[in-house]
């Protein structure tokens, strides 16, 4: 190995360490993490929206060919929502692009991720995994601060 080769190896190492530290910092400081997987339990597979306290909600989302249940959700501004995701047939995706919330619904598994809705508006949920011929119609929406409706 000559000096140029040693330099490029050191450079590579530094870059990768910077990337890794950034990733770990995002996890620790800003709590930006991957979905959490939960041991399978049938009680999560029944679709429902539960209000835990003023700002905290739990939603059990059931995905199926080719819809989500519940398909329309209303929350007040500032709501923190835990989504528990399951599938009753094939594999689906659950993507809220505006929130960077990205999960797979896999039969036999329960997935969990949390989003905080600080801005009013309509948040689109798109199924982003091919799930059969009606896949392109599979979506849902979250409406934040819709006039007094829940």
């Amino acid at each position, binding site marked *: 190995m000559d000096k140029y080769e040693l330099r490029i190896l050191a450079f590579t190492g530094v*870059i990768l360490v910077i990337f890794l530290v950034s*990733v770990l910092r995002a996890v620790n400081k800003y709590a930006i993490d991957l979905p959490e997987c939960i041991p399978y339990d049938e009680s999560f597979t029944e679709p429902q929206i539960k209000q835990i306290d003023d700002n905290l909600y739990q939603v059990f989302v059931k995905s199926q060919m080719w819809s989500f249940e519940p398909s329309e959700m209303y929350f007040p501004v500032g709501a923190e929502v835990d989504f528990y995701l399951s599938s009753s047939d094939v594999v689906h995706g659950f993507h809220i692009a505006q929130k960077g919330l990205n999960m797979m619904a896999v039969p036999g598994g329960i997935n969990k991720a949390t989003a905080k809705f600080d801005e009013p508006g309509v948040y689109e949920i798109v199924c982003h995994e091919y799930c059969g011929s009606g*896949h392109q119609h599979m979506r849902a929406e979250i409406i934040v601060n819709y006039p007094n409706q829940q």
Partner: protein
Amino acid sequence: MQLDINKSEKRLLLLLLSVPIVLLSLGIYHGLLQTLYRSGMISQASFAALDYYQGLTLHGVINAIVLTTFFAVAFGHACMAYYLKMKINLKIGWISAILMIVGTLLAAIAMLSGEASVLYTFYPPLKAHPAFYVGVALLAVGSWVAFWGWIPMYRKWKNQNKERKTPLPVIATLVNFTIWQICTLPVAYELLVMLLPWSIGWVETINIPLSRTLFWFFGHALVYFWLLPIYLMYYSMLPKLAGGKLYSDNAGRLVFFLFLILSVPIGVHHQFGEPSITRGMKLFQSILTYGVAVPSFITAFTIAASLEYSSWARGYRKGRWFGWMFRLPYFDKERYLFAYLICGLILFIFGGLTGLVNASYSLNNVVHNTAWMPGHFHMTVAGPVYLGIIGMTLYMYEQLSGKEIRLKRIATIVPHIWMVGMLIFSTGLMAGGLLGEPRRTNMGMSYLDPESPLFRPDWVMTTGITVLGGVILFASAGLFFIVLIDLIFTKKTKEQAIRFPAYEVLHDEKRIPLLDSFKPWVVIMIFVILVAYIPVFRDIAKLTGPGAKPFDPNNPTPLELYESND
């Protein structure tokens, strides 16, 4: 140096090269159509008797699995014979080819009849016709057989040449097929032990998270299986084509052995968004994925250094920073293969960097399963891999048939058009992905249909850019087929023999025994795989619920219910 070939060898190699190229015409046709469907220019489920998802399955299976596997085997035969100066075992070669062709035909029939619209990842519980699963498995098994024929050749050469360095292309070929052999075992298990009995109806349910993990154990190593034959060309042919020499031969050896260790135990980075695998294992495999970036960084340096040297060798002044990049023979029609390799290499800079984004743990949340993903991997598999394969196919066809390309100017411009088209196409896809466009979705029927309540005007621009890219790519592919067909119909002018560009090294270092031996590396490889995957399978066993029954992609009712009503 040249390798003379007899009739049977010529037939075998030409067959292996031409089967996937014929199918490629279908794969590329549906590539263009997908951009039209996605942008809303086609707003229907199918066009010209081909359903969107059926065509997408064909596009993925043909371009990413059939083309790459056939080429890796054909090129592997040629490299083993050429660089070891030995004959390949023709009997084994033919058995392997027949298995691969039968498998491909079975899968093709299943896909074309619309009974296997499950995409190239064939994720259950979507069910395909059993022939599809058998076909894909046979294709893999056929490629193993070819590899089994090369091992005795290597052993024999090694016994006769104990103190000589094994030629780098031989190391590359054997590393690649060792990875392939190990990574395809779990997917063969998934196909033959899980999916096949389940699709026939002998088994009622299967474990879905397990099947996905077995698939991705194979799925990411597959990426390197596509790429390593092209790396082989970068190391052993590109420097000479540019008029220079390879900067360092030991660097190449180290790179290939690093790939051997790290190509497989990183598959979980495709499953970051899934339940049943804990975050700790995801982070661990994310770090290992950074590790596999190291050999690519070394390659970037070594190849760039070799190309800079080639510019000096052709008279460009030494010591200037980037000027050498503009003095390379990009458009030299007498060495058209250079254009294919360098255009692929330029695309791969972006393909590799976006790959690092995908591997970066929680950053994956932003891009997973969005249009960003095909944007990324089209700059790898449809960048260096595709261009290397079609360029080398032209090159080998010329030599195997003893003919010469007449349309050399067009042949040289094909990769440049492709590169421009791919940069535009991938920009559209990646930008769309960041806006939330899903991948693998017939968006013209919903999100890109102005009549639909789901219409998303913010995605019009990005999908439009992919159409522009798609049209340019299609034009480039069309020109390639014109060059190839013209070549097939020219007269034979030369004798048939394989002559690869000579392999020369700038700093010819001493033989390092560690970099010339497979055993220690294979042991480390298996150790890392066990460490990275045993906890994952334990997670799945602990966290997963009941198994799943099969579903037809066209019907939300479980298959057993509506079939029994008929």
